[in-house]
């Protein structure tokens, strides 16, 4: 048995057919040796993964590194995923764990060649790629918000980041947090209450 999976470029027709498959089917095909199916999962979830990690680590370079590592961990551990339909929540759990671990132990990094290669400097791309939150009031406000978010307990922070800031479905957030949808609502509520208190000078 070959240790490395076969890498074949796939055409756009094959990509389109994979795009129509559910997460459960893509996970099943990946486990069956079809690596293109995992590429489809990368396409589907890389934005979410980068966005969530970016909110947690605070810079694009680390967010990209975390995203790559999270997909590698997900690929290697795919066989242990008990509910293949919940791949998205499971991946977000890996992303958030890696991000918070990195944040605990890392030194702040400056821009590197990886970030240079992957982060475009064309400001016109921002509107296209910025995700659900495109309005920026001021960098100072963004910084204060980041500081306030960091003061929240872990689950509240993750719930606010994934659900309120990044607009992930509550079910997926529940999968990432390992709790029920009702608990996600409660964590969001508690997080919002604390943020209201921490940011009261702006409210």
């Amino acid at each position, binding site marked *: 048995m070959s240790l490395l999976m076969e890498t074949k470029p796939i055409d756009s027709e094959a990509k389109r057919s994979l795009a129509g498959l559910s997460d459960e089917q893509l996970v099943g095909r990946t486990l069956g040796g079809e690596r293109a199916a995992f590429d489809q999962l990368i396409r589907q979830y890389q934005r979410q993964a980068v966005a969530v990690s970016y909110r947690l680590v605070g810079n694009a370079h680390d967010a990209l590194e975390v995203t790559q590592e999270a997909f590698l961990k997900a690929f290697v551990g795919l*066989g242990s995923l008990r509910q293949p339909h919940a791949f998205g929540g499971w991946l977000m759990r890996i992303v958030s764990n890696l991000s918070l671990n990195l944040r605990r132990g890392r030194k702040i990094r400056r821009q590197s060649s990886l970030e240079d290669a992957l982060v475009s400097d064309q400001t016109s791309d921002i509107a296209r790629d910025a995700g659900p939150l495109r309005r920026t009031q001021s960098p100072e406000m963004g910084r204060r918000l980041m500081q306030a978010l960091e003061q929240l307990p872990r689950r509240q922070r993750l719930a606010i980041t994934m659900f309120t800031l990044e607009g992930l479905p509550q079910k997926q957030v529940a999968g990432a947090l390992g709790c029920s949808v009702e608990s996600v609502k409660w964590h969001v509520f508690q997080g919002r209450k604390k943020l209201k208190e921490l940011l009261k000078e702006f409210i």
Partner: protein
Amino acid sequence: MASENLEFLITQYLDGSLPERERSELERKLSEDPAAARLMEEHQKLSGLLCSASPLPPIDWDALELRISAAVAMEVEPVQRHKLPRAWVGAAVALAACLLLVFGISSLMRRDEAPIYPVGVEAAAAIVVGPHAEEARGQPMIAEVTLASASSPATAADEDPARPSHVFITSATLH
């Protein structure tokens, strides 16, 4: 409506996750209660602040996808979790229980028939001190027993018949 419950409903309302029936009820409450309306206003302002979170810098998603895909291609295949059918697991547990039962019973039966210690093996000697020292001679497992002499560590307390004898094992032949 309690204040905390009201605030919980407001946050769900703003997140768009409040069920329709509760939405109507909350809207009626907001139109009638100025305190509730004020609370709603505060949360709306917070939502505005949350929108000020700095957006992601522009990222070349195609390049990122290729990079991750290439990294994944270097990995070994994902480890398959082999699940035994439920019936197999049940059968294995039943078999293990039977074996345990059989060996357990046979072990108990052997214990009743004969000593479990090996016979004729030089293992230890017993130096017995105290009022019951003489009884040690009658022990079926110990063939030779050396009684402690006057110079042994016997004390006055050892002479108390209610107190068990001290046994210092040095060597003995088991039979």
